[in-house]
């Protein structure tokens, strides 16, 4: 599903964030991406989101080489992903419902179907009763679950999560990880970047450990 072959990312002329990184994530896998600060986790996620392109090497997701995508194709590719950020990145001026339904809306999904699917995913994260609230009215844990609902609403094949529990307390973090485990159990490929070893131990899946600019090493 995700393949990196000798991916190098250099900023400017001499700051190497990733150096000849190669690994593959199979369809339906749950993989943790871990490593110390500065190891390149965020860079790798930016490459996977096609916010940036590799300086060298190839990165393919679902058979598409990301560097060759046009602007329109990049947006279509992003719609095929589910992305969860550490700081949630919810639109504060839209209700919970609108935040979650937005992707379906731009895809032209019929309104009734949008409504049904949005309530379905909100129910999945246990927040259907907050559909009309605005993000600032919610707790951090609730906001992260809304972000997860938004990531899932379009039934993506791949979910990327960047430190999804970074702003949450340990109990909530375990709850969120359980949500990701359920998502994966339904067949979705999940890639979670985190440095929280307790979470990794709790879920117990394959770990890709990034070491500073030296490439990835599979620990499990």
């Amino acid at each position, binding site marked *: 599903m995700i393949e990196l072959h000798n991916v190098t990312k250099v900023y400017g002329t001499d700051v190497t964030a990733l150096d000849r990184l190669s690994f593959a994530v199979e369809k339906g896998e749950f993989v943790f991406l871990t490593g110390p600060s500065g190891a390149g986790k965020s860079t790798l996620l*930016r490459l996977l*989101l*096609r*916010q*940036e392109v590799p300086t060298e090497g190839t990165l393919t997701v679902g058979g598409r080489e990301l560097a060759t995508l046009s*602007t*329109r194709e*990049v*947006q*279509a*590719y*992003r*719609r*095929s*992903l589910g*992305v969860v950020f550490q700081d949630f*990145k*919810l*639109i*504060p*001026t839209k209700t919970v419902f609108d935040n979650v339904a*937005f*992707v379906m*809306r*731009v895809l*032209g999904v019929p309104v009734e179907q949008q409504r049904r699917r949005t309530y379905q995913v909100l129910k999945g994260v246990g927040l259907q009763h907050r559909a009309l609230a605005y993000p600032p009215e919610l707790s951090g844990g609730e906001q992260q679950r809304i972000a997860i609902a*938004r990531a899932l609403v379009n039934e993506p094949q791949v979910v990327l999560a960047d430190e999804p529990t970074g702003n949450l307390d340990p109990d909530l973090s375990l709850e969120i990880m359980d949500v990701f485990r359920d998502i994966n159990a339904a067949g979705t490929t999940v890639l979670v970047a985190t440095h929280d070893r307790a979470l990794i131990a709790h879920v117990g899946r394959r770990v890709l450990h990034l070491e500073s600019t030296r490439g990835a090493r599979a620990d499990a």
Partner: protein
Amino acid sequence: MRALAYAWQEAVASLARARWTLLLSIATIAVAFAMLGAFRVVSGTVERVAGGWSEAAEVSVYLDDVVTEAEQAAIRQVIDRSGLAAGVTPVSKEQALARFGAEFPELGDVTASLDANPFPASFEVRLSEAGMAGADALAASLAAMPGVADVRFDRQWLSRLIAVITALRTAGWLAALALVLGAATTVVAVVRLSFEARRDEIGIMALVGAPVAFIRGPFVVEGAIQGALGALAALGGLALLGRALSRALGPLAAALGSDAIRPLLWTDIAGLLAGGALVGAAAGLLATWKWDPQGPLAR
């Protein structure tokens, strides 16, 4: 269609949130388009009046007091054969004197005290529309004929007047264009403010894969709405101004002819509204032009 409906909803919501900047923008556009509309009215009126004067232009051929009938016939023949005359009126010395007496009755004593009639006989040649172009040549050939004392063609001052009007019209269009560009700059600034205020939201939309049309569209529509509302306000202002001026300048309008003042036509109104919307939309597009949908979030 989906993108347009979304853009419309988002633009209306955004404008409702920023009422004061919206009012500033509308006012600026209204001033620019009011100037444009007023200029169109003035320009149209001046063209109409000058056109009327052009149609009324005539060549006056003054005859010598000792002109013979054969010379008069030859002069008349040249005029008729030129094909430039829409009508010819022979005016005798007596008719000229009577006309002067009628037009200036207070000078009756002066003319009565003269021993002889000082007014020359003449041919008044009213030019056809096509005749305006060849009138100079006709006047020159008539002036060279025996029996002709003088030839006056009042097109010369009219030509100068038209040249002045043309220069003023060019300057007016340039001034109006500058105002419209100024208004567009204001719209760019207002839309840019709105864009900056929503930069994080836009970044999120880009990351979840919103098509570029869904991201830029609301700002383009926002600009178009501002432009159209500004043009509408300008039209309202022009209507009020026109009503006030028609009262104040009624006598002048009557002197120029009852239909001399050219109102804004439906095509002008539609043009101003469409122009306002187009200028606004272009400004909205310009305000978001440098944004890169593939760039890092919230950069």
